[in-house]
C-alpha cells in the first residue's frame, strides 16, 4: 500500500482546515481557467492559448484533489492514471481526422462510464445513508445519466464506425418497450428517493438506464448524428454535474454545467439547421419513412459530364463556391479539394467554401477536415454568411452533399425536409454535383436539383473527380 504522501507532506506544515481551504481555492482557480479556456475558443487565433489554460486548470484540480483527507492510499489511483494516460495518448495520436466523430462518441462513452462507476461505487460501499434523500437524488441522477450516456454513446460510436448499420434500426413494438423502460426508470428512481436503502432497486435503475441508452440511439439514423452527438455531450456534462452535487464539489458542478451548456447549444443549432424538433429527431425515425409515392413529377433530365468537360466550365468561371458534405469525408477528398482550390486561386478566381451546420456527422466536421488539408480558415463560410452570394456565383461545386442543397426544402410543401434551411446552390449559374451514383441521399428523398437546367453531374469517386479537374485544368493551360 502506498500512503497518500502528497497529503502527508502538506500536513507537516499545514493544519487540516488550511489544507481544506487550499483545495477549495485550487478548485476555484481551475474553474476560472476552464471558463477562460472556453472563452478563448471564440477565435482560432486564441483557441490554443485557451486550451493551455484549461489544461493548467485540470492539472491544478487533479493535484490538489490528492490533498483530500478521504484519499488514504495512492496505488489504485496511480494504476488508473497510468492506464488512462497511455490509452488517451494512443487514441489522440492515432485517430485520423476523418474518424473524429467516432472518437468523440467514444470519449462521451468514457466520460459517462467514469461518472456512472463513481456513483455505483459510492452506493455499493454504503456511502448513501437510508435517510439521505438528497444524496440519493444526486447519485441516482449520476448513475442514470452516466449509464444511459455510456450505452447511447457506444451505439453512436458503432454506427459512426460502420460496425452497426447507419440506417435507423426499428422493430415491432418499439414504442411499448420504450415506454416500459421509462416507467421502470421513473418508478425505481422515485421509490429510491423515498427509500434510499432499497439497494436491489438501485441496481435495477442502473441496468435499465443502460438499456435505455441503447434503445434511445438505435432508431436514430447516421445523418441525424450531429444532433445525437450534441445531446450525448449535454448528458455527459450533466452527469458530471450530478457527481458534483453528490460530492458537494463546486468545480465538478461548474465544469459539468459548461459541458452541459455546450451540448444544449449545439443541439439547438443542429435541430434548427434541420428544421426539426428534438422529439422528432429522437422518436421520429427519420429516414425510415418510405418515400412518398405521390412525389412531385420531376421535370428535366440529368446531365452527366466527364471531369474534362466540367473542368472547361471551371476554367472560365470567376467565382466558385464549394459545398462539402459527408461524401467528401467518405472518399477522403479533402486533400484533392485543397489542390483544386490552390490551382483556382492561383488562376485569380475567388474560391470559398459554404458549410451547412449539419454537413457531416458531427458539428464542425467539415471545417476540421478542410483545416487538416491546409485550407485557410478564412475561406470556410457559415451558411448565413454566404447564402446570399450564390446568385452572383459562376460555379458551385457540391462534393458529396445532398439533402442540404435540395431545393425541395424551399419549394415542395409535401417534402419531409420542407422548411429546412438549405444552401442556395441552385441559384448559382452552374452547379456541379460530384456524386458516386444516382442513389438518393440519406433521407431517401429525390433531389430535384439534379434535374435542373443549370446542374451538371460528375459521377465517380469525389477524390478522383477532383484530381481529374486539376489535371484537366493544367492541360487547358498548357
Amino acid at each position, binding site marked *: 500500500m502506498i500512503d497518500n504522501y502528497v497529503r502527508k507532506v502538506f500536513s507537516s506544515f499545514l493544519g487540516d482546515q488550511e489544507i481544506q481551504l487550499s483545495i477549495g481555492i485550487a478548485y476555484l482557480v481551475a474553474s476560472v481557467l476552464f471558463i477562460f479556456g472556453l472563452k478563448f475558443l471564440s477565435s482560432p487565433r486564441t483557441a490554443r492559448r485557451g486550451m493551455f489554460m484549461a489544461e493548467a486548470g485540470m492539472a491544478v484540480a487533479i493535484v490538489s484533489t490528492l490533498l483530500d483527507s478521504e484519499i488514504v492510499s495512492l496505488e489504485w*489511483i496511480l494504476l488508473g492514471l497510468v492506464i488512462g494516460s497511455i490509452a*488517451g495518448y494512443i487514441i489522440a495520436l492515432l485517430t485520423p481526422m476523418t474518424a473524429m466523430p467516432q472518437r468523440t462518441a467514444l470519449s462521451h462513452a468514457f*466520460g459517462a462510464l467514469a461518472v456512472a462507476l463513481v456513483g455505483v461505487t459510492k452506493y455499493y460501499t454504503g456511502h448513501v445513508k437510508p435517510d439521505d434523500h438528497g444524496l440519493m437524488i444526486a447519485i441516482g441522477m449520476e448513475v442514470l445519466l452516466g449509464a444511459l450516456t455510456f450505452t447511447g454513446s457506444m451505439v453512436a460510436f458503432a454506427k459512426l464506425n460502420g460496425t452497426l448499420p447507419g440506417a435507423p434500426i426499428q422493430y415491432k413494438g418499439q414504442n411499448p418497450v420504450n415506454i416500459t423502460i421509462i416507467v421502470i426508470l421513473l418508478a425505481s428512481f422515485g421509490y429510491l428517493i423515498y427509500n434510499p436503502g432499497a439497494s436491489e432497486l438501485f441496481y435495477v435503475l442502473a441496468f435499465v438506464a443502460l438499456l435505455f441508452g441503447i434503445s434511445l440511439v438505435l432508431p436514430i439514423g447516421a445523418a441525424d448524428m450531429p444532433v445525437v452527438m450534441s445531446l450525448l455531450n449535454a448528458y455527459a456534462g450533466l452527469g458530471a454535474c450530478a457527481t458534483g452535487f453528490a460530492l458537494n464539489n463546486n468545480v465538478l458542478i461548474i465544469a459539468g454545467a459548461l459541458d452541459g451548456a455546450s451540448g444544449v447549444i449545439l443541439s439547438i443549432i443542429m435541430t434548427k439547421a434541420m428544421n426539426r424538433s428534438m422529439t422528432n429527431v429522437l422518436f421520429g425515425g427519420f429516414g425510415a419513412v418510405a418515400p412518398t409515392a405521390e412525389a412531385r413529377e420531376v421535370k428535366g433530365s440529368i446531365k452527366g459530364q466527364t471531369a474534362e468537360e466540367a473542368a472547361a466550365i471551371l476554367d472560365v468561371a470567376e467565382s466558385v463556391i464549394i459545398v462539402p458534405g459527408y461524401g467528401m469525408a467518405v472518399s477522403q477528398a479533402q486533400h484533392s479539394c485543397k489542390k483544386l482550390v490552390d490551382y483556382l486561386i492561383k488562376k485569380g478566381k475567388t474560391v470559398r467554401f459554404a458549410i451547412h451546420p449539419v454537413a457531416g456527422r458531427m458539428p464542425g466536421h467539415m471545417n476540421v477536415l478542410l483545416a487538416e488539408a491546409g485550407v485557410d480558415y478564412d475561406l470556410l463560410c457559415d451558411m448565413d454568411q454566404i447564402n446570399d452570394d450564390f446568385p452572383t456565383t459562376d460555379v458551385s461545386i457540391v462534393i458529396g452533399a445532398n439533402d442540404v442543397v435540395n431545393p425541395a426544402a424551399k419549394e415542395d410543401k409535401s417534402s419531409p425536409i420542407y422548411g429546412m434551411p438549405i444552401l442556395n446552390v441552385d441559384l448559382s449559374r452552374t452547379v456541379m454535383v460530384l456524386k458516386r451514383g444516382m442513389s438518393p441521399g440519406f433521407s431517401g428523398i429525390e433531389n430535384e436539383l439534379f434535374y435542373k437546367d443549370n446542374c451538371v453531374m460528375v459521377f465517380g469517386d469525389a477524390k478522383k473527380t477532383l484530381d481529374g479537374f486539376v489535371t484537366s485544368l493544367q492541360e487547358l493551360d498548357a
Partner: protein
Amino acid sequence: MDILGPLYIFILAAFVGYNVIHKVPPLLHTPLMSATNAISAISVVAALIVAGMEHSDDSTKTLAIIMSVIAVAAATTNVVGGFLITDRMLKMFKKEKNEAGK
C-alpha cells in the same frame, strides 16, 4: 446536505457557459465538443476520491476497487486524449501567409 448553494453555482455556471459558448464560431464546433469533453472529464476528481478511499468492509473492497480504477482510467483517458486531440485539431486551423494577397 445543503442543496441551495450548489444549485446557485450550477445555475450561474450554466449562464456563463451559455454566454461563453454562444460566441464560439461554427468553424470550431468540433474542437469545442472535444474541449468541453476534456473539461467535463474533471469527474476524474471524483474518481480519484473513490479510488483512494479507505475500505473498512472487506466484502465490498475488491469490486469497489475494480470499479474505481476503471473510473479513474476512463476519465484520465478523456483528460489526456481530449486535450491532446483538441490541440492537434486547433493547430491545423491556420491562415495561409504566402498566398493571402491582402
